[in-house]
């Protein structure tokens, strides 16, 4: 590696840091955080800070943390996730953990981590459904309603 490479690497590192933890507002009061790739301590801290700031900024009550894209959930990753859940709760927001695969779920059980006190759902869609339910919202299909109307 020559000396000219260093700024580029720094730049790329910064870009990756920005890309890796997007916090998306999917609805008023609902934030989504799709995690992709492995979660180390530095990344978890970065994610935590950004998430908490966004919760305060947007006044969101619910955060859907999607770990579909996290290949391996070991004790360290689980601890980071639990820290995120606790910190968000202290601000007054609830974290729904979604996208646990069957392998992840069984790994966690075998590690003795039952994630007590954390609400989990299998997919992002199920998580969003629960979020709407908690906010007292309902999603109905226009077509179904029309059919019901003609029949009833």
């Amino acid at each position, binding site marked *: 590696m020559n000396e000219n490479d260093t700024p580029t690497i720094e730049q790329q590192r910064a870009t990756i840091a920005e890309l890796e933890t997007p916090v998306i507002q999917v609805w008023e009061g609902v934030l989504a955080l799709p995690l992709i790739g492995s979660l180390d301590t530095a990344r978890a801290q970065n994610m935590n800070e950004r998430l908490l700031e966004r919760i305060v900024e947007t*006044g969101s009550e619910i955060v859907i943390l999607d770990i579909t894209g996290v290949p391996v959930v070991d004790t360290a990753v689980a601890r980071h996730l639990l820290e995120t859940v606790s910190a968000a709760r202290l601000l007054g927001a609830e974290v729904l953990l979604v996208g646990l695969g069957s392998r992840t779920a069984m790994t966690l059980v075998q590690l003795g981590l039952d994630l007590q006190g954390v609400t989990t759902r299998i997919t992002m869609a199920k998580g969003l459904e629960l979020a709407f339910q908690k906010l007292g919202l309902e999603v109905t299909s226009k077509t179904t309603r029309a059919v019901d109307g003609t029949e009833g």
Partner: protein
Amino acid sequence: MLTSAIIKVRDTLIVSVQEDLGDEDALDLQAALTQQLERTPVNGVLIDLSLVHVIDSFLGRTLNDLAVGVRLLGARAVVVGMQPAVAITLVELGLELRRIQTALTVERGLDLLARSTNHRL
């Protein structure tokens, strides 16, 4: 001398915790709040931490004790307005305040108290 304000609004005591709360101040606040609860029983206590930017283990524990004490005196405690940095510090200290209810803003905290007292009646 008490440095934080305790304001009674109808059935709720609102505690606005001041910036840079020292150990002594925290203990004074704890005593003042529990005494006030003894004199004027209310259903809810709202602890507003929006001015608090720095927290240590002592303050964290005092806060926890305060909330548990409030519950023993028959009221509900809700902590509101916590700063992100404070939340991260508390979690890193292992003080997750699991037994305390939280809300983002004073308004939401009041809603939460109203809802929980309605359920109880």
